[in-house]
């Protein structure tokens, strides 16, 4: 039991360690403005990573989320720009745009999920394929450049990223709500149970009257919708999308999930661990920028070392498993 507790706490300890490190390196680190920045930035990857936790727990993977975010951001911006002359630069238009983002995300997720469950293609390949497809489409829609939101809408929409309750901005609030709901869903609902059962042993799950294909499909749709939600928060930040939006987000999201203690091969999902993982990754970036290092060329190396170290604390668990 003691062993297992240590494992569960591993990433948390790493997070606390980073916190202390940050505070020691630069007092500005603990300023509310900085923490607010870091948390708000974490929100995009965070929302996606919560969805990714379900997909990975179920035994799948989704490499397309970064490109999907770029693509959804692109169509959302285009939709709002197209609507603005008709409906005007008002909240109605923005809400419609948000609707497009959510529906588009869910639909994109459905496509991934359907290819995995109905066409029965390996998830890695499906989402590698759609990763290329989404990225190409957004580049093509933007004609190689950048899609920018109409400036009237932009001004109206901006507070969705920058506003909030004091320094607790909307992205932070949304991320917190989704994280809590995600954890709750994984722990306390039938869906969460079935996701874990499917990832642990899908044959047994099927024998126990779990509709494995449906559960799988639902996780992809959920992830897609969360990508849509992340987009809703992303667009007001810079008001633009291009072929370079969301590059490598998939890797970051998957890394956050695994740092958080969810097994890559599925079976056990830990949403709160994922949240910790996301924060760890964001903090590393922040601390590297706040500290003065030998050479910025080595940032990536330090990042790599910290990621590995953060996970070392978990290894105890694997020892127990291996027996």
């Amino acid at each position, binding site marked *: 039991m003691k062993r297992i507790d240590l494992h569960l706490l591993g990433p948390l300890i790493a997070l606390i360690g980073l916190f202390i490190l940050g505070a020691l390196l630069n007092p500005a680190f603990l300023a509310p403005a900085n923490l607010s920045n870091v948390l708000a930035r974490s929100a995009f990857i965070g929302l996606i990573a919560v969805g990714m936790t379900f997909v990975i727990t179920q035994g799948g993977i989704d490499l397309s989320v970064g490109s999907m975010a770029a693509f959804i951001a692109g169509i959302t911006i285009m939709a709002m720009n197209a609507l603005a002359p008709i409906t005007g630069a008002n909240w109605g238009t923005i809400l419609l745009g948000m609707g497009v983002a959510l529906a588009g995300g869910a639909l994109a997720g459905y496509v991934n999920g359907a290819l995995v469950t109905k066409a029965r293609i390996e998830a890695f390949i499906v989402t590698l394929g759609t990763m290329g497809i989404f990225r190409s489409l957004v580049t093509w829609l933007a004609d190689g450049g950048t899609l920018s939101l109409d400036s009237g809408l932009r001004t109206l929409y901006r507070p969705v990223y920058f506003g909030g309750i004091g320094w607790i901005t909307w992205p932070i609030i949304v991320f917190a709500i989704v994280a809590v709901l995600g954890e*709750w869903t994984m*722990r*306390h*609902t*039938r869906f969460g*149970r*079935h996701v*874990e*059962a499917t*990832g*642990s*042993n899908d044959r*047994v*799950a*099927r*024998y*126990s*009257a*779990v509709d494995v294909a449906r559960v799988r499909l639902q996780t992809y749709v959920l992830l897609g919708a969360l990508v849509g939600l992340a987009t809703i928060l992303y667009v007001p930040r810079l008001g633009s999308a291009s072929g370079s939006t969301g590059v490598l987000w998939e890797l970051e999201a998957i890394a956050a999930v695994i740092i958080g203690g969810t097994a890559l091969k599925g*079976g*056990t999902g830990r949403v709160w661990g994922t949240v910790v993982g996301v924060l760890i990754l964001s903090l590393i970036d922040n601390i590297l920028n706040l500290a003065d290092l030998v050479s910025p060329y080595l940032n990536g190396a330090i990042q790599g070392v910290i990621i590995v170290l953060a996970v070392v604390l978990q290894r105890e668990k694997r020892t127990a*498993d291996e*027996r």
Partner: protein
Amino acid sequence: MTPVIALKSVTRSFGAVEVLHGVDLALNAGEVHALIGENGAGKSTIMKILGGYLAPTTGQVLLDGRPVRFRNGPEAEAAGVVVIHQEFNLVPDLTVTGNIFLGRERTRHLRLDHQAMRDAAAELLARLDSPIPVDARIRDLSVPDRQMVEIAKALSRDARVLIMDEPSAALTHREVEALYAQVDRLRADGVALMFCSHRLDEVVRLADRITVLRDGAVVRRADRGELTEDSMATAMVGRELTDIFPPKDTVTSDELLSVQGLTVPGAVHDASLRLAGGEVLGIAGLVGSGRTELAEAIAGLRPARGRIAVSGQQIRIGSTRAAAAAGIAYLTEDRKEAGLLLTKPLTQNLTLSALDRFGFRIDRAREAQAMKDATREFDIRAASPDMPAGALSGGNQQKLLLAKTMLTEPRIVLIDEPTRGIDVGTKQQIYQFVRQLARQGRGVIVISSELPEVMGLADRMLVMRQGRIAGEVSGADITEEAIVRLAMGLDARMEPA
């Protein structure tokens, strides 16, 4: 009275091979029906057909006299037909409670009702007299505990028909009694029960009707009291079985294995034992007494402290390679998770531990020959050496595992539950085989939860209790009573001689 569920001239083929040939069978409410037969006779296949997991190739399944076609297991379950599979069907990462209620979770306002499910699970396990914690993950449970959870899971379904595929194969005495009590209760409640078993005493004790299967066809039907254990065995095997245990003609040579002060954290404390060449050493004990851990530690599969020497030569502890190099082989009790690669062909499974004997470039021809020899020697009934090991019948998997272990030509063999799921005919063969190993001068350690089995085989017996070696009995002192006393913690020496 119409039977609750019945098979009408059912056949079933896998590929070109027909394994059931026109089977008729009927289960009545309030009756216990035993299905017995040799390994690979088709018992599990019949049960899977009844439970909707397999479709008959031809013929019909009748539910309440009407033909039905279950598309899958859950559909049959919805109709009240519940199966406890021979192969475990538990999700390793979920808890005991999670597994018992998988697919039928109880909720309150969307939220899982953890407490209600936990209570219900605890109640079910209590009914089975089993102390398994309901929050333990299946991954962390021992094989017998998993079997108990499987039974609890089936009991939690409101079954009209309960089909049990070798439910007691992995259980020990005490748990078996709890199972029997449940069977009696369900029978009294009017449930139609069917089970299969290689424990013939159990068949005599429980069954109202018996159907004997041989090579996929029914060869005998009988009512309670019509068949004795011997006549059942004869009907199954098609020949007379005499003297199931070979004579103990032991000629011991020098000390082969010596274990001193072996401690496996949390499982085994300060265990010491010696084993001579030509000797069969039995280890008895209750479930959880640490027998498996002791054997695994000797085979280098667990980190441990202490000293292990083979022929006086100290070996490194915790290294499977060192143990294997010293000639120690361990045959696991957990054949599904630790014994066989279920998706790989039989031949690859057979040779996995002994590949170095097939040349740098693996000699396929020699491998095939080894497979042929093993098939003959261990009477493995397989359609083809290229079929995946998972498609073998349970008993035949066990035989393959035995063959695999023997292929390494070990000097010391540790066998954990050697005859789990093995039919009487083959059991006899395996006992002969164990004896033959000893005659060849090898050392054999047998761990078994079937007391008669260890007693019949062993020259000398150790009894374990709570991770310690509680005592040793040998020769004529090997009696059931002496062993049970040691296992339960009542000192054998207190017994007046």
